[in-house]
């Protein structure tokens, strides 16, 4: 059997609180496996533990109990940390607070510089990474002149230039407008398909989950639901209980089904809906 790229075994994590008021338990006994080339989406409302989960994958946080293995390396062992961060890159929510340098290319070079890669090779990687996210023509721009979606793509390029096996995106679209969200989602999917980079995408936007291979739904520090997008969205009742909305079109399908229209419950796109309602076309 294939070795998973990321493996969580009975992971719990408690945030330490000051003044001895007891900590906040953000992860409770999480078990998870992510395989290479997979696109895994993690859903959950605020405080469900999804960001904490993300920070465990590249050793920004280490489990209070349990074990996280990345490519066979234990994140709790301090000597492994740098190798793990080279294998797992992370993109954060606020595009402004993760760009370091004064020009786009300089920023994309930041990661490889940290890895001690020779300058000529860095040049090559910067060009490649900017090309992969479609930002090559902006290479000399200062970050503050870019739109939110462009900044976030530069942040992704900054990770791609480190040649990671896996990218963890912690709500990368939360602060973007719809156009920016679309840009970022297209970029992530392209990287996953064309470069074979494993993606762990954390979000609370239901429609960003549709293209994923697998969806995890988190609530109160636990993974409460797992499956393909279709399987997960067919659980409309449970999702509503967790204060998550299914995509509008899925919701419509479920409402129609409950009124006796013959239609499957796992409809994800408008196209599918059309196909089922008007099969002759």
């Amino acid at each position, binding site marked *: 059997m294939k070795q998973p790229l990321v493996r969580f075994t009975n992971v719990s994590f408690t945030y330490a609180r000051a003044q001895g008021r007891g900590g906040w338990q953000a992860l409770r006994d999480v078990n998870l496996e992510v395989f290479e080339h997979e696109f895994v989406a993690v859903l959950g409302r605020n405080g469900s533990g999804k960001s904490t989960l993300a920070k465990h994958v590249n050793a920004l946080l280490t489990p209070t109990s349990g074990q996280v293995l990345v490519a066979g390396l234990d994140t709790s062992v301090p000597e492994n940390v740098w190798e793990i961060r080279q294998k797992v890159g992370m993109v954060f929510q606020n595009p402004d607070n993760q760009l370091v340098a004064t020009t786009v290319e300089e920023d994309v070079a930041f990661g490889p510089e940290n890895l001690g890669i*020779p300058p000529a090779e860095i040049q090559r990687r910067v060009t490649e990474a900017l090309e992969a996210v479609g930002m090559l023509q902006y290479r000399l721009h200062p970050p503050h002149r870019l739109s939110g979606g462009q900044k976030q793509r530069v942040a992704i390029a900054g990770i791609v230039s480190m040649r990671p096996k896996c990218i963890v995106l912690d709500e990368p679209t939360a602060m973007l407008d719809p156009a920016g969200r679309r840009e970022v989602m297209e970029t992530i999917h392209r990287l996953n398909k064309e470069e074979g980079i494993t993606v762990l995408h954390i979000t609370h936007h239901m429609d960003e989950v549709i293209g994923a291979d697998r969806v995890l739904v988190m609530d109160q520090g636990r993974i409460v639901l797992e499956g393909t997008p279709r399987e997960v969205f067919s659980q409309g009742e449970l999702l509503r209980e967790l204060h998550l909305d299914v995509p509008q079109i899925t919701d419509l399908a479920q409402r129609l089904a409950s009124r006796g229209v013959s239609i499957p419950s796992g409809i994800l796109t408008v196209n599918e809906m059309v196909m089922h309602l008007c099969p002759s076309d």
Partner: protein
Amino acid sequence: MRFRNLTIGQHIPGNSVVHRLDPRTKILGTTLLIVLLFAVNGFIGYGLVALAIAGVIHLAKLPWRYVIRGLRPLLVILLLTVGLNVFLTEGEVIFRLWFLTITREGLARGGMMGTRLVLLIVGTSLLTLTTSPIQLTDGIESLLNPFRRLGVPAHELAMMMTIALRFIPTLLEETEKIMKAQMARGADFQSGGLMQRAKSLIPLLVPLFVSAFRRADELAIAMEARGYRGGQGRTKFRELRFGRIDAVAIALLVTFTVVVGVFF
């Protein structure tokens, strides 16, 4: 308030010989200029330095008016220096009006000080005008590197400069945003006495500081996630190359400094 138009370092991009010099050469040249201006005593010396600076401006193809305009923010200091020297130096009186007296020595000293300041400001501005902030940072880091053993945090200083340059526009934009938000709720930043106005800045500065600290925290996490662990074992994307024109430039600069410094 138009913060957006603010340019930092007033860098004028170009591809002249001066622009292409290694930033270290230019930093060294600027240092020599400062030393020279304090060593020279006499108008012939200043004239030669002025000629040299004019030569560099010409070589760099900088717009003269832009360079001269750089003096404007320092006009008050300039006038004050010249004025104090002219009026307060004792010696042979050549002009007297009520309590103001002008002496021959005063005029000479005022003129000297004025020339020195003007040359100092214009000369040093050439560094930032022809060198981008990134190159400047790289140059400073590289020049400080040998002093690391003495405990000079060369890489850290350069990193601080880079991050400061990166976040100045972001924080200015944020300031503008907060000001507008507070003004929409009736805040008044314009009127009142000095105390009143200082007080009115509190609702601006508090959120600005809170946000700056939050940004710093998030940036630190992002940097760590990208494998940052200080200067050790780090390579540079952009290498500084000390070429033949740099050698020529430095030879010329040193010769000029020694000759002018010693003889004038």
